[in-house]
């Protein structure tokens, strides 16, 4: 059910004016009219703490609008057929005779080239959402409507190639026509409105389109983990009743939907989503089922297994502890409404969804929802390492417990810890920004950034940027830490003296480290490198306490021998006095 215009206006009118603004450009060649209203309304619903402000451009000048865009967190480009050639619209009369069709294709090519270069230029600094024509083509070809003409097929093929080429550019997100089809199935073109006001969409279509576009403006962070039940969820049948050979996931046993569910979970695991099992079952039987029946979701995809007869909520608590994430980051799938209710009561933030075992259509809809919850822009190297490194981390923690506190440095030397540091600022590294925006515990101040804001800061000459990757004998952890700050050479950016001693300072404004990298003394190595490599005398920490950054507070207290507080400082001498001896090999990335 799409949002109605009356509802959209009420949503827009109810936005708190003092909320932090969210500046978004809506760039199109037609009058944006209700699309602007719907976009603001959907953005307001998606980002309730923000006050969306949608800037629009000039009618009929999509290229110019692209060239003028500035100072926004994201830009949305809606291309319709007349933007590729005015003869493909209703408001200009250039002729629809057959002799013009070849010329229209040529004009479409010219518009495509111009649009592509303009959009690439915008996307270099601003996240760009792009939507290709959503309206039906005007009846300009000479064939009957049911028959696709060579012209229309060629035209659509060029647009498809155009969108595929754009999708390779960093910073560009293309709206999926299939998603729009699902939301906007009624008539899309409003001839009256196009002719009288230059707004070509029916209200339901404008609403659906705005919903899709708003969802792409600032990608909500994906969920991190999925906790699944086994019986009548991962497979059909109750293992304890029908035995290992009685469970199924295939067409013959009318249980194919369970195979599709497994296939999706296997794909999610390969994309870096954490998968765990919480099942009231006999562990030895479950192990036997995985070994003997070779499910599509492999045993290696799953960590941890919580298989026993205890409460599911306790299983979920242990899984969250093993993953070191909060309930808000997980989805629990189970065929038992009672178990889901019990989990939800203990972990209110978790998404608890029923696996509709008797209804394949509803189960298929669930697969789509799961894909949406766990959707990512791209798969990073770290995504492929996540489950393995969690498993290895459990092993590491076990080994650490066997060591005496004084021997920890020796222990870390023995595990061949190696840090790779990079200070390369370009091109924008989406993994770094993801770490900054997702990390809660070892986080200096909880500050989050939008892509454009992050990139603009790092581009400043005095901005220091450091990413840290790590591996040891337990395996690689990938990129696990990001530090960013500003160098102050005794004077601040306004030219005023910051410190009478003229000390060279680094003000660290952002510092995050993945919880997977805890307990390895990596944070000390980072500080050691900053003092040595940047030749600074003092670090200032733009620290703010948050509800969840206790690990950062503990570290600052330990290294400074004083409680963490906003703008607290650490001198080189103070650090060297209390830091543990270096226990890792540190190398700088060849790329800088």
């Amino acid at each position, binding site marked *: 059910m799409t949002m109605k*215009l009356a509802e959209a206006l009420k949503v827009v009118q109810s936005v708190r004016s003092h909320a932090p603004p969210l500046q978004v450009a809506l760039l199109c060649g037609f009058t944006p009219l209700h699309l602007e209203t719907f976009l603001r309304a959907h953005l307001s619903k998606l980002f309730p703490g923000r006050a969306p402000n949608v800037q629009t451009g000039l009618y009929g000048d999509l290229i110019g609008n692209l060239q003028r865009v500035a100072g926004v967190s994201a830009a949305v480009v809606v291309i319709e057929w007349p933007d590729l050639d005015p003869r493909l619209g209703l408001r200009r009369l250039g002729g629809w005779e057959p002799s013009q069709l070849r010329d229209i294709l040529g004009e479409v090519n010219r518009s495509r080239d111009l649009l592509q270069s303009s959009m690439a230029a915008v996307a270099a600094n601003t996240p760009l959402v792009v939507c290709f024509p959503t309206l039906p083509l005007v009846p300009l070809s000479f064939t009957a409507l049911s028959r696709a003409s060579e012209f229309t097929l060629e035209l659509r093929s060029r647009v498809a190639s155009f969108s595929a080429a754009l999708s390779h550019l960093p910073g560009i997100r293309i709206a999926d026509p299939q998603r729009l089809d699902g939301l906007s199935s009624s008539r899309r073109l409003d001839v009256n409105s196009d002719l009288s006001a230059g707004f070509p969409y029916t*209200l339901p279509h404008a609403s659906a389109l705005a919903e899709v576009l708003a969802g792409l403006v600032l990608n909500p962070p994906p969920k991190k983990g999925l906790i699944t039940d086994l019986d009548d969820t991962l497979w059909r049948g109750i293992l304890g009743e029908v035995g290992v050979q009685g469970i199924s996931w295939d067409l013959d046993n009318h249980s194919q939907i369970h195979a599709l569910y497994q296939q999706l979970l296997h794909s999610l695991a390969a994309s870096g989503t954490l998968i765990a099992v919480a099942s009231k079952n006999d562990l030895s039987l479950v192990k036997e089922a995985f070994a003997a029946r070779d499910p599509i979701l492999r045993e290696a995809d799953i960590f941890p297994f919580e298989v026993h007869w205890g409460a599911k909520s306790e299983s979920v608590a242990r899984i969250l502890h093993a993953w070191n994430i909060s309930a808000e980051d997980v989805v629990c799938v189970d065929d038992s409404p009672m178990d889901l209710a019990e989990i939800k009561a203990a972990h209110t933030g978790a998404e608890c969804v029923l696996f509709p075992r008797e209804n394949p259509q509803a189960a298929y809809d669930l697969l789509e929802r799961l894909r949406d919850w766990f959707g990512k822009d791209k798969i990073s190297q770290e995504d492929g390492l996540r489950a393995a490194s969690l498993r290895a981390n459990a092993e590491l923690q076990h080994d650490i417990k066997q060591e005496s506190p004084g021997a920890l440095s020796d222990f870390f030397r023995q595990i061949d810890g190696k840090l790779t540091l990079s200070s390369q600022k370009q091109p924008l590294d989406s993994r770094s920004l993801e770490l900054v925006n997702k990390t809660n515990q070892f986080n200096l101040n909880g500050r989050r950034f939008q892509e454009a804001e992050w990139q603009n800061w790092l581009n400043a000459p005095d901005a220091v940027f450091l990413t840290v990757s790590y591996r040891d004998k337990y395996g690689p952890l990938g990129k696990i830490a990001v530090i960013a700050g500003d160098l102050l050479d005794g004077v601040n950016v306004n030219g005023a003296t910051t410190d009478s001693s003229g000390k060279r300072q680094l003000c660290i404004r952002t510092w995050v480290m993945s919880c997977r990298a805890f307990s390895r003394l990596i944070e000390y190595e980072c500080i050691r490198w900053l003092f040595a490599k940047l030749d600074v005398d003092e670090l200032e920490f733009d620290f703010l306490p948050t509800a969840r950054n206790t690990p950062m507070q503990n570290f600052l207290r330990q290294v400074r021998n004083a409680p963490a507080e906003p703008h607290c400082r650490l001198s080189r001498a103070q650090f060297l006095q209390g830091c543990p001896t270096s226990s890792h090999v540190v190398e700088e990335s060849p790329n800088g």
Partner: protein
Amino acid sequence: MAEIESRLVNCFATAFPELDPQEIPSVSMGSLASWDSLAGITLLSLIEEEFDISISPDDAAGLVSFELILDYVRRLSSEVAK
């Protein structure tokens, strides 16, 4: 008929949130500064959505007051009912 008037008042209240509901029945394009062409399009779109009707551009040009719009919607509704 009273129901049509009340639904129309709601459309006006959504398009012109600054208006006191009691002022709405007497409002016209001439008396309300914020009723410009853009607000007029939004108002008529709200009415089309609310009453599930289509207002032709020729008719739209004459719909410049609450009273005229109320008559127009009543006429369309009674034609549909016939």
